[in-house]
């Protein structure tokens, strides 16, 4: 039978170990597009929606981390406790496709597909999320940077399943912004997540490079300037430095020039929002 619906993690990893070419399906919102558009002809599918661990999330206030299972839908992240704990993730989740997509789609899908335009990925990068993988025999945890290695490429091994992510809480402001040429339901042209922790800024960019870009030079610069010194001019300069770290391309959705410009503008604006100026 080519469709498996395992009801435990152990069953899922076991199935995968004996069907290494199987397609792993969480919400289906990426894979079914490819099937419908005749770009993919699945033969074996392992649907993960019944694995309880993948649907769970919790906020560990002692360890100051949030754990989110790979099948938790974006809709769950938009409101409530998760949104309070991780506002940038809530803002990113809200921009994923349509309400119908957000009811089905999940971090497991964004991570599995690893598109540079994946809306949640800049947040995972900026918040130093850890990605958890499990095979029948072993468990691995990777930083986001180790996990995403290229456009639609990640370091998941064929026998591994993305079980979830652990996201450290920040003690400062965090936010997300995304440019699309429509007020809702649009693929990212450029996106930025900015988070402040222990008075230090972290910033990550989406859709402006082969992977999510963590702007280490811009971060170092602004942290040397100091958040207390941020004004409009500093924010503009920060934006220019972020712009310089982006590596966008031209495609049918936008131009490299515009994308470079946009991440600079967004980074400056988010920084000002972060320091409430």
């Amino acid at each position, binding site marked *: 039978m080519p469709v498996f619906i395992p009801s435990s993690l152990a069953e899922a990893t076991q199935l995968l170990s004996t069907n290494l070419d199987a397609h792993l399906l969480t919400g*289906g919102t990426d894979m079914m597009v490819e099937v419908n558009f005749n770009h993919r002809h699945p033969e074996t599918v392992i649907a993960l929606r019944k694995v309880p661990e993948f649907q769970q999330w919790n906020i560990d206030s002692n360890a100051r981390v949030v754990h989110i299972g790979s099948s938790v839908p974006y809709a769950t992240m938009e409101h409530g406790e998760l949104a309070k704990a991780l506002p940038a993730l809530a803002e990113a989740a809200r921009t994923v496709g349509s*309400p119908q*997509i957000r009811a089905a789609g999940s971090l497991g899908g964004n991570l599995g597909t690893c598109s540079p335009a994946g809306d949640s990925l800049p947040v995972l990068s900026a918040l130093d999320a850890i990605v958890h993988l499990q095979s029948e025999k072993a468990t691995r945890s990777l930083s986001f940077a180790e996990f995403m290695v290229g456009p639609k490429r990640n370091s998941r091994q064929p026998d591994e399943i993305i079980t979830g992510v652990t996201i450290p809480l920040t003690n400062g402001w965090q936010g997300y912004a995304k440019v699309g040429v429509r007020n809702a339901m649009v693929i990212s042209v450029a996106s930025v997540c900015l988070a402040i922790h222990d008075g230090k800024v972290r910033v990550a960019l989406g859709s402006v490079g082969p992977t999510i870009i963590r702007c280490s030079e811009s971060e170092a610069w602004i942290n040397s300037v100091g958040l207390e010194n941020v004004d409009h001019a500093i924010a503009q300069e920060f934006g220019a430095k972020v712009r310089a770290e982006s590596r966008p391309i031209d495609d049918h959705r936008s131009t490299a020039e515009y994308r470079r410009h946009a991440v600079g503008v967004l980074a400056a604006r988010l920084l000002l929002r972060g320091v409430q100026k």
Partner: protein
Amino acid sequence: MSESEHYTLTVNGVERKVSDAWIGESLLYVLRERLGLPGSKGACEQGECGSCTVFVDNAAVCSCLVMAATAVGTQIATVEGLNEDGSLTDVQEAFVTEGAVQCGFCTPGLVMAVHHLLDHNDSPNEQEIKEALSGNICRCTGYGRIFAAVDTVISVRKGISS
């Protein structure tokens, strides 16, 4: 087709057998072409129009993006199941009386989306309504009469409850 899948789906509370299906079939295809439920419409096949909106375990999702064979064990509700005695729901009635229907292709999906919204929020504001319907493209109406229909349902429901 050489491949064959056999499974059972629960649609509008009824168990429906699906035989000799191809694994890649979407729930939308199975509903329309195998189960005789063409009320859900396909217009984009990629979750960008909402015409195929159904409820799976009470979540409003695009049936074109649900692999049908993986929906075993879920409760699936379609526009055909909204009111099986053939009468109209308040949302359906308001769509007709407020002129929210033109070509009608987006209509079943929108009716489902509006029901889903109002089932979870009995007094949404303008932005909440627009955001909740932002996944349902209508090409004919420009949405004005659709908003009018939603407003009508909200006030009628409030009138009844107060």
